[in-house]
């Protein structure tokens, strides 16, 4: 029975890494938001499963927060922002999809090697969960680096935060207060970024962050 518990937890965490790679692959705005919502749904399923295995009912609350906040509210809000600002529906990337995916693969390999070496004595479930969580975090960072559009950078940031939650629930004994405060700080960050988006758009007529470089006199 323990084996099945382990396998399902593993599969959900692996699915999260897969969805992070799919986020890198998407080149349309609405497709990106849909995949992001799915990312959050898989995350909340994974957290709920961890709560079930560890017998920790407070994890169900975390799962519920992730589901409501990240799978419903934030994607819907982002979608409305995209529609209202009339942002281009295609996403410009700094480098092509192929090299980005290869870099993503490299990051996944790196996090596996690092995590499995560093935590050799830990409980195997927590250990491989941590390895997956680290790859989700790194892929989120990669997404923020390789996208020029501010909305997809937000999505990258949110998926990074999903990785942090995955790591936090994998380790036993994370207090609920911390998780709730993390969830709400993400919401606050989202609101701040949303306000910034409107400001950037107002001033530069575009949410392409390359416009900021020109403004600061860094390029051209």
């Amino acid at each position, binding site marked *: 029975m323990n*084996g*099945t518990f382990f*396998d*399902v937890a*593993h*599969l959900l*965490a*692996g*699915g999260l890494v*897969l969805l992070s*790679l799919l986020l890198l*692959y998407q080149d349309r705005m609405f497709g990106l938001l849909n995949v992001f919502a799915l990312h959050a749904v898989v995350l909340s399923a994974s957290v709920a499963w961890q709560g079930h295995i560890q017998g920790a009912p407070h994890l169900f609350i975390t799962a519920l927060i992730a589901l409501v906040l990240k799978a419903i509210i934030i994607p819907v809000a982002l979608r409305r922002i995209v529609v209202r600002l009339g942002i281009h529906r295609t996403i410009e990337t700094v480098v092509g*999809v*192929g090299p980005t*995916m*290869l870099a993503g*693969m490299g990051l*996944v*390999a790196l996090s*596996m*090697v690092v995590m*499995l070496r560093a935590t050799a004595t830990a409980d*195997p479930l927590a250990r*491989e969960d941590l390895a997956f969580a680290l790859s989700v975090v790194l892929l989120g960072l990669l997404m923020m680096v390789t996208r020029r559009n501010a909305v997809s950078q937000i999505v990258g940031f949110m998926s990074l935060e999903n990785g942090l939650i995955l790591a936090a629930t994998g380790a036993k004994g994370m207090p609920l207060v911390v998780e709730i405060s993390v969830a709400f700080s993400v919401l606050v960050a989202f609101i701040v970024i949303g306000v910034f988006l409107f400001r950037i758009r107002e001033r530069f007529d575009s949410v392409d962050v390359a416009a900021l470089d020109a403004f600061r006199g860094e390029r051209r």
Partner: protein
Amino acid sequence: MALIRDLLLQGAQVLLVLVLAPALLGFTRKVKARLLRRRGPPLLQPYLDLLRLIRKEAVIADNASWLFRSGPYMIFAATWVAAALVPTFATGLAFSWAGDLIAITALIGSARFFLALVGMDVGTSFGGIGSSREMMFASLAEPAMIMIVFTVALVAGSTQLSTIANYMLDHASLRVSLGLALVALIIVAIAENARIPVDNPATHLELTMVHEAMVLEYSGRHLAMIELAAAVKLLLYISLIACIFLPWGLAPAHGGLAAHAAGAAAYVAKLLLGGFLLVLFETSIAKMRVFRVPDFLGIALMLGLLGTLLLFVSRSF
């Protein structure tokens, strides 16, 4: 007596894949038409089409070489042998020692090689376009297939399909790397069979066709061979996925007649399920641009690579 029985079973398997292939094609066309709220051709239409093509005269271009005439038979033979080696309703058949994943990949690869050659043989521009695109896709689909083979072989400890199916039956578990291999194999199967996001099997629009462009010059019995080979290839991929990832219902090596009948029924059910899911996917998605296909296939390659990687890092993935 046991030898005769084994050979009979293997013969039944060889015939089964050939007989069921057009029916599967007819089934997918029917379901697709139904999903689009049309009535669709009858289930037996592919058989009738094949019969009609065989009866018709074959028109051959003046400058066609011997390759153009013999190509369809080679393509069909390679595909048929590959399909006959996949355990469909029973494991441990007489020739199951030959049912090796690498051998099957190589057989499909050589069929594709001949197809690309005969596409260029007459020298029309469409054939050339089709062949070059097919090779572009193949250069990504084949490494992806090899990576999938590695992943499955690392898990099961063998590349022989019978052994793999038995391993999967005994050690059924949800493994991340097998999940990755499954998604990758589905992508490769869609690309190899020229199904919708990659190529449209029903179109003859010049700019988008890949598979149809290569076989444009064929008619009569040659075209019948190529169409039949395409049908067998679709059946082959669905059987492969069913055999590796859904081995329940396969008859054991020395089961009785009842076990084999049950295995055959399970196999037909799996084929219907596979065909239905394929059509459902096809109707819910639009065809992608040709130059977007390498990205799509790149995903398959990447997933295969990731699966192998995970297995190397830790045995428990």
